[in-house]
């Protein structure tokens, strides 16, 4: 039996301290960029978010394959939790990018290679999440979304490669370019660790939530079955089909 969603105080405090320190370092300790000035500091959250998102999608891929091979529901829970984390972190990337681009490039968006492929990646995993909402049976959902998850992940390098070829034939704005000042590295790495920490923390909580949902569904099915057999039913007639979460958590 799952223990319910407890607040993991220690790791939450640790990640909170990490993200606080990373924020302070990125905003106050890191040197200002010479030409872009203050706005460049968004980079400390933009790039690590992308990396945390990639790690999350990697976890989804591994979990999808593990589910297809092992058929343990926990892999499905991990796959969906990680996919949601990936979409969340790439949403951060796609929002912070234009905020940076407007003052620096003068435009919010351009169909540059990296932007376009990130956008396609984001849409691919959004459709993975949409697919999951549209399959009713839990086991069917796990199987079909795992196959889709594998195909989506295999598509990513091809999307990047083709969009890269496509765009490099055209003029494009320069992203980054040149090395980073060595004083920029420590805040950058700190932000990297902090955002990865946030991702793992959220992933763990999301995974537990998924496990609980599964359990609630099992209990509800058992109750329905018992009621249909004329036996004792914990669900009052005409009441909610789903027992309270409190009961399920014990």
């Amino acid at each position, binding site marked *: 039996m799952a223990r319910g969603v407890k607040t993991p105080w220690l790791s939450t405090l640790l990640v909170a301290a990490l993200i606080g320190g990373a924020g302070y370092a990125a905003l106050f300790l890191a040197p200002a960029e010479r030409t872009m000035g203050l706005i460049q500091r968004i980079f400390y959250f933009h790039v690590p978010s992308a990396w945390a998102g990639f790690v999350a999608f990697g976890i989804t891929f591994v979990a999808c394959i593990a589910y*297809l091979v092992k058929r343990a529901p926990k892999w499905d829970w991990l796959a969906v939790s990680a996919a949601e984390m990936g979409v969340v972190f790439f949403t951060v990337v796609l929002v912070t990018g234009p905020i940076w681009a407007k003052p620096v490039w003068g435009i919010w968006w351009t169909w540059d290679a990296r932007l376009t492929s990130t956008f*396609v990646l984001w*849409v*691919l995993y959004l*459709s993975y999440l*949409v*697919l999951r909402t*549209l*399959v*009713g049976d839990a086991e*069917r959902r796990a*199987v*079909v979304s*795992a*196959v*889709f998850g*594998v*195909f*989506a992940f*295999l*598509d990513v390098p*091809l*999307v990047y*490669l*083709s*969009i890269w*070829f*496509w765009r490099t034939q055209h003029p494009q704005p320069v992203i980054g370019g040149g090395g980073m000042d060595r004083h920029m590295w420590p805040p950058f790495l700190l932000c990297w660790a902090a955002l990865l920490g946030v991702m793992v923390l959220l992933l763990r909580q999301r995974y537990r939530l998924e496990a609980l949902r599964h359990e609630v569904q099992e209990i509800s099915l058992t109750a329905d079955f018992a009621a249909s057999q004329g036996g004792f039913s914990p669900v009052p007639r005409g009441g909610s089909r789903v027992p309270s979460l409190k009961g399920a958590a014990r």
Partner: protein
Amino acid sequence: MNLARAATIILAKELRTEFRTRELLTTTVVFVLVVVVLFSFAFDPTAAESRRFGPGLLWIAFLFAGSLMLHPSFTREQANETLAALRLAPIEPLAILLGKILANFVFLLLSELLLLPVFVVLYDLSLTPFFVRLLPLLLVLALGTLGLTTVGTVFSAVASQARLRELLLPLLLLPALAPVLIASTEVTVGLLADPPQLQRNWLQILLAFDLVFLTATWLFGEYLLEE
């Protein structure tokens, strides 16, 4: 029974079903024509512009047509509960998928070949000399369509098990086909340019796409057919 023979039998069955009514082919061809007309309403292109946009439009129309025509591949079986019968057959599940991929490939490629002369007329294209333009163009059509139908048939099996499946299939398929759209369009543009040029790197991407997803179907496709 070996895999190739089983897949051929499934392919023959699909072809027989389709050529009794030819409904998929007719619908697809008319659909693409409608898209072409709508395009000229929306953009009102001059002759030079329509030649420039032609290849891209052609491939977008094929992609949309594919995402609609692949949908009956599994739902047609569901309507008559014949998929269960297919599963009972003493053949590998992969053979069912392969047969359907091949059948869809034949249907879509056939519609494209029927539409090609229409495009030549509408967009004032020149497909000669044969070995420099038409032959490579047929190769691109084949490679692009193979990628489209491989991923499309698998995703059609995925979508057939969900609600709102008509809406879901294009949603799943179109973003995943971005590499096919880009690569096929670029090669087609190159072939129709003056002088024509064959862009090998794009053909390699198409080939890589086909191989990656045929392999993935071989490894993971059969999970979709279990009960």
